[in-house]
């Protein structure tokens, strides 16, 4: 079980490392969404500061959504997924390895890119560590929940729109707590409770998620 975990984990990381273009595109997309936002309003610092947390998290949500499309696609096309499904190893462990590798390759980008963008929107420097913490706790949750929907829509043509419809309602808590913590930190309200809730959601998604992803993969493969 451990061997299968490491094998899948290393394989997916290696693939991600060799397709750096995809990661760069995702990062660029995220930067563009956030950077274009001020162009739609004005340069008033107070306005930008008020919407900065929401803009950041909407950028994250959209980027994660786009990355979900390809989550199982190549594995499905080259037959790897069929082998995973046939394998006697638990599918949930394989799913867990895949998700962690995917998060390390793509989700971690947000944690790194977020602070730079937030400085551009005028968020004070001392808020940034908390903001990175929420990104670190929130993005795995998004990936694990989103993967369930991605697995269900695996073989559907034009699944992208449907995927958004399925996952965005489930992303509401992460959006609320993620931007709420940053807003609280900016205006100096206590935010520790919300950080703990985000950590709890993260743990919940990582522990229950793989089982749901495994079940969804079996269903999606039949669809």
């Amino acid at each position, binding site marked *: 079980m451990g061997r299968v975990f490491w094998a899948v984990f290393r394989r997916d990381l290696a693939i991600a490392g060799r397709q750096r273009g995809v990661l760069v595109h995702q990062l660029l997309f995220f930067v563009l969404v956030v950077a274009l936002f001020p162009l739609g309003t004005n340069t008033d610092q107070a306005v930008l500061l008020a919407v900065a947390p929401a803009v950041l998290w909407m950028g994250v949500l959209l980027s994660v959504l786009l990355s979900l499309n390809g989550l199982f696609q190549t594995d499905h096309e080259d037959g790897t997924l069929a082998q995973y499904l046939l394998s006697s190893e638990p599918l949930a462990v394989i799913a867990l390895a895949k998700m962690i590798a995917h998060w390390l390759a793509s989700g971690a980008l947000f944690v790194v890119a977020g602070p730079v963008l937030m400085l551009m929107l005028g968020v004070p420097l001392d808020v940034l560590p908390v903001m990175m913490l929420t990104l670190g706790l929130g993005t795995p949750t998004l990936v694990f*929940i989103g993967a*369930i*929907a991605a697995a*269900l*829509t695996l073989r*559907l043509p034009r*699944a992208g729109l*449907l995927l958004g*419809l*399925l996952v*965005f*309602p*489930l992303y*509401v*808590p992460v959006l*609320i*707590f993620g931007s*709420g913590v940053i807003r609280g930190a900016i205006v100096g309200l206590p935010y520790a409770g*919300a950080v703990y*809730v985000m950590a709890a*959601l993260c743990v919940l998604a990582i522990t*229950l998620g793989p089982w*749901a992803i495994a*079940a*969804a993969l079996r*269903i*999606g493969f*039949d*669809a």
Partner: protein
Amino acid sequence: MHVRLGHDEKTVVSLTMDKGVKQRFHRLGSSPYFYDASARWAIWLAVPAVICIAYAVIAGLVYVPPDYQQGDVFRILYIHVPSAWLSLFGYTAMAVAGVVALVWRLKLAEIFIAAAAPVGASFTFLALVTGAIWGEPTWGTYWVWDARLTSELILLFLYLGVIALHRSIASPRAAGRACALLSIVGVINVPIIHYSVVWWTTLHQGATLGLTGGSNMDADMLWPLLAGALGFTCLFGWLTLWGMRVQLLWRERRSRWVMKRIAHG
């Protein structure tokens, strides 16, 4: 082939003991039996639905005195509250059916989800619309980003997600199982979404009806409301049952029992 018979004596004894129950359960799984029987059951949902809703509407509009603060506006609650109750009840029922569908692979549970989703979504929509109509004279605006309104809106999106997923997958079996899993994932999220939205903001008037502790409502106002809730629940069951019958006919449209029933009208 109802029950696979075992050879040892013990199995035979236990089989004869609960044979009746088991037979009923297995008969329920047979599509023609369910189709014919559900037509008879429908009347037991339709009659209470019509009576209770009629009583709730007439009593709510005519006999109940106007509220000392809100005047006549509050009368919309006889539609609003039962709709809101069913929006939650419907999704929970879908998730329970989802567990049944995934664990016991019962076809009827899958069909229940497919049939209940549009009905539940309609009630959620009704709750939102009546809430907006009530909000305009009371709060001065049709939409407020308050906790319960917002979670109701997200719930509507969850319903629409299930419906969209069901429509997108061509194979009925796979569509049913996919929706079953999505409903379970959704129902785990419903309380989390609700409490996150409550944390986000609270402006709504507190809940008036509670199971524990007394309700802050006069009995004259309360009885039509409870009747409305019961009537709407029966209506939900009735509509879902008919939806299931339609789903069943469509799914098995090429089988002999459907052909026979359609030929006979």
